[in-house]
């Protein structure tokens, strides 16, 4: 599988704090790659760097051959980022928010409409899209944002805790949507501390703790390697 994203020796310092200690991983086309680990492990920092929000202190990140440090704008054209605690503009209707975001990516009015229709299908909010997003529940906002993140069919979708705050039914729906889009060729880099979710979703996993990748591979190979029944046990074993 050819890699769309290559991360090599990525380091990030916040003042004296070393948040990432030289992590490396790749994401293939149409692959769902997950970073799993406890809070403060460095998952969000890694995702934010790939999403061009933070600059790396050291190391290299290349995406479709573009270098992050030199051409961040090329990244932004082809990625889509869903932050963990993201919100929508409260004074905009859901549909207007989607239109606003679509216009940054679409080449024409027709394409804008295509993006919006796709987002409507993903978000599945029906007539509530005509209401201001400030009236939405957390779950509805999350689905609207997921629709926004995937409507452009990005080369790489970066999803930070995609099911955060969702109830069981909505979380299941979101997982199905992410899987479907990956099958259609979209690469996904996601983070979660929900190991069961990751086991269901991911093609490959990297276990991260205190800024270091402890182990990586497919869920099955990791389970075999650590003689574990699930990823939670793998993580505990990797920590030892």
């Amino acid at each position, binding site marked *: 599988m050819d890699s769309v994203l290559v991360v090599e020796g990525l380091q990030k310092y*916040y*003042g004296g704090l070393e948040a990432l200690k030289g992590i490396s991983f790749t994401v293939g086309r149409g692959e769902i790659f997950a970073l799993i680990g406890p809070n403060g492990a460095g998952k969000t920092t890694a995702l*934010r760097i790939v*999403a*061009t*929000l*933070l*600059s790396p202190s050291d190391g290299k990140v290349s995406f479709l051959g573009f270098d992050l440090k030199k051409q961040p*704008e090329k990244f*932004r*054209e082809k*990625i*889509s*980022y*869903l*932050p963990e*605690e*993201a*919100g*929508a*503009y*409260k*004074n*905009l209707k859901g549909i*207007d928010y989607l239109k*606003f*975001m679509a*216009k*940054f*990516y679409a080449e024409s009015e027709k394409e804008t409409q295509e993006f919006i229709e796709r987002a409507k299908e993903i978000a599945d909010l029906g007539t509530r899209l005509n209401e201001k997003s400030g009236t939405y529940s957390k779950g509805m906002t999350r689905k609207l*944002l997921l629709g*926004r993140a995937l409507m452009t069919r990005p080369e790489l979708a970066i999803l930070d805790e995609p099911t955060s705050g969702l109830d069981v039914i909505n979380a299941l729906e979101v997982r199905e949507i992410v899987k479907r889009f990956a099958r259609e060729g979209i690469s996904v880099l996601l983070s979660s501390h929900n190991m069961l979710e990751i086991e269901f979703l991911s093609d490959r996993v990297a276990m991260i703790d205190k800024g270091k990748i402890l182990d990586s591979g497919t869920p099955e190979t990791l389970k075999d390697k650590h003689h574990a029944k699930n990823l939670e046990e793998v993580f505990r074993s990797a920590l030892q």
Partner: protein
Amino acid sequence: MKKFLNLLQKEIRELITMQLFISLLFTIFLFYFIGQMLKTEMKKAMRVQEIAVLNLDDSALSQNLLGALRSANFEPKPVPDRDTQKAIQWTKGTNINLLLVIPPGFGESVEKFENKQIETYSFLRTFSIVGSRGSVIINAVIKAMNEFISNDYLKRKIPEIGPEQLKNPIKSRDFVIVKDRMAEGAAEKIAGFVSSQSIFVPIILMMIIIYASQMVISAIAMEKQNKTLETLLTVPISRTSIVTAKMVASAVVGLISAVIYMIGYRYSFGSLMGDVSRTVGSGMGGVIQKLGLAMTTKGYIILGISLFFAILVALALATILGVLAEDFRAAQSLIMPLIFLVMIPYFLSFFSDPKSLSLPMKIFLYAIPFSHPFLTTQNLLLENYQAVVFGILYMLAFFIVLIIIAARIFSTDRVLTMKLRFGKKKLVI
């Protein structure tokens, strides 16, 4: 450009909220209400006012004095008692605010030029200027009567010399020179007139700067508070465009709001301050024209440019402060230093002459970019064009430096990591 316009449209839509409309309507209503109230009070003050009079003299002169008061819109009400203390008690029980006591032998004493005092008792039931207006008018009436009595006496005693010449043997003609132009008039009157004509300039300036800055600082803080900034920073549009769109939208909405406020202000209070247009063609208007102290179209354009650059500086400064704010509440606190930077030159331009300030104070005043538009009107009228050009160039340089800093902050991690935490009072980077 298409992406920028998309962003600009969103920024304007975010700023034009129901709260903004309500706030604008409420302020205009408040202006209207206060304006109407003041107008009514002024009309009341101009109406015939009752004055309690205890006339213990009843001479022709005291009758003349009461006649003069009637001409000055007073209605003398005789007090039923013939005793001052009782007259005070009687007046206290009425709504009348002024008691005039004319002592016995008043007319006779005045005829003999023996100083005889009349007494006025003002019942201070309010501290407003309108409330104490009565005694001021009485004093003016007494002054006029003093003039009349002394002139009459002088005319009779020394008919060959006019009383005016006798009392004021030295006369002066006042001339005012501005650059190479000269006109006859009193300097204090001309200075007062010019400052009354330009009184709106600093008010407009202050309102626009504060309003637009508040918009941009809140817009950035709200992006952080609503967790929309991270998403916005990953869309394919330059960071400079994001900063610029916020600034342009805030400037447009701030400008519209300020104009609406000023129209409301002018409509409500304008009639109380006197209409500028009425003075054109009058004696003072002619002097002003002759001295070149009337603002020309060119002058207004230059003032507009100066104002525009001041707004740009304020917006760039507010953008940087907005990044430091963690949420909307913090943004409201961060606007305070900016308000002080506007208020300092605002008050200094009102109450002092920058040229008379000490050197450190002068440096301090001119270092504040907002001082320059406050001084522009004065400099234009006095043809100090160098100072005006310097002010504009200084603000331009200041703006360029600030916008570079703002763009750098937005293109680095700092836009997400830099914040002032008011609880802990320290800068966290």
